[in-house]
């Protein structure tokens, strides 16, 4: 193929090797992306502390706004999920910012890695940030506002949190990618994600209302099913459309 070159000992492989090299596996790429993501977050603390702090402040706001010392049942559900929603939006906004500002998209697009790996890695990262948020936000909620027993609500609440997080992760990653390369990214992120996340809030709130009621009731399966289906639909949509957002 190429003519012989001087300084060929500077070459690291034979010229044909690059062409024959197998593309990296999805797993290794997602792993590398996720590790990079978490490393950057751990060094800059851009997302998780802000989200957690925001949630606690919001509880205080609700206390004063609703003029209540404790909440139970549907009110408790509402306060918890709306707070988590707004805190999540903060995370969604920050998700792709580092990549947009530091040429991360180009770097990724220049590689032979599968585009969907980025979607998967970002969604996983967002899911992890949401878990970290909830580690603070849920106990804080129990401490500050919840009138019923958290322990009684617990196993059911974990399931609902997981399903809610999945929905936010799928939609958040799609919307984050959509909003990041625009001029008004901080405004568009919330504007786009909130309506799309309303059904998630509906599902989560209605699922946890009996859990926070006094006395505590059972977990309504129909809402879990609804949430699960919603998550699935938008995960598929995100998967199908994400590549189109990455191109220049």
């Amino acid at each position, binding site marked *: 193929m190429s003519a012989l070159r001087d300084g060929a000992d500077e070459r690291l492989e034979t010229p044909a090797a690059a062409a024959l090299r197998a593309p990296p596996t999805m797993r290794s790429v997602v792993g590398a992306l996720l590790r990079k993501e978490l490393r950057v977050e751990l060094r800059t603390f851009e997302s998780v502390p802000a989200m957690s702090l925001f949630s606690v402040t919001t509880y205080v706001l609700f206390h004063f706004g609703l003029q209540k010392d404790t909440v139970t049942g549907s009110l408790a559900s509402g306060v918890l999920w709306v707070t988590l929603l707004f805190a999540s939006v903060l995370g969604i906004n920050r998700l792709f910012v580092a990549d947009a500002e530091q040429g991360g998209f180009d770097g990724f697009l220049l590689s032979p890695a599968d585009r969907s790996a980025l979607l998967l890695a970002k969604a996983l990262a967002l899911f992890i940030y949401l878990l970290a948020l909830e580690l603070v936000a849920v106990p804080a909620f129990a401490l500050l506002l919840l009138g019923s027993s958290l322990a009684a609500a617990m196993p059911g609440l974990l399931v609902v949190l997981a399903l809610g997080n999945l929905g936010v992760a799928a939609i958040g990653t799609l919307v984050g990618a*959509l909003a990041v*390369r625009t001029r008004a990214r901080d405004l568009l992120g919330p504007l786009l994600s909130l309506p799309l996340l309303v059904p998630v809030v509906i599902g989560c709130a209605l699922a946890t209302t009996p859990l926070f009621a006094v006395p505590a009731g059972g977990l309504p399966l129909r809402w879990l099913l609804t949430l699960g289906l919603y998550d699935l*639909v938008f995960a598929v*949509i995100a998967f199908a*459309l994400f590549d*189109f*957002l990455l191109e220049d």
Partner: protein
Amino acid sequence: MYGKRLRGLALTTCAALTLTLVAVLFWAPNDATEGFLQKIFYVHVPLAIVTLSGFIAGGLMAIQHLRTRDARWDVRSYVAIHISLVFGVGVLITGSIWAKGAWGHWWVWDEPTLVSFLLVMLLYATYQPLRFAIEDPDRQARAASVFAITAGVFVPICFTIVRLSSAYVHPRTLDNISGDLPGRMQVVFWMALASIGLLWLLLWRYEMASKHASAQLRRLRRLLSDDEDDAAPLRRSAAPTMTHAGSAR
């Protein structure tokens, strides 16, 4: 290209609308409980159906855009959503008037269709700001298409979930759109639906023709003036333009 059958369509639409208006005012029966105001139903519901269909059509056109990379599909999708947004505002206004007349409040939460509609409109209201915020026309079109598809899928799902939750929260469901309309009301309803559908189509074709003509004009100006930059000043815009040969492969 788009202007050809415009006149025929315009005449048909005018005729249909006039006929429907006459039917609504003079032929359709007056509702026993709500009286004359109930007739706004013949505007409100067809508007809603056409608006939602328009949004979904916009989503389907967006799918075509992403598949074929032909910029014309993006323009079609934009116009569809744009017109549906206008119709949608009409839905909210007529819905509000009807609610005030029927139940005494300008807004009611236990009418799941109205609530879902509000949510859908809140989402689509971000379409133009989104487009405006992206300067690169290629990227703007792609982002808009992704949005249109996501939102288009959201429409039916949103209606289903809100309806489910409404049944749960407000056991008394107000279901006044399903097919048990007495004979005459049904006929008038279908007439209204057809006319408003035609109106949407007319406006869509009209705007497409207008965009096409402007693009042709600009292209001719460019060819005549020998200077590329002359006829296409780079103004930020939310609206896509019809480039002659489509977009990237």
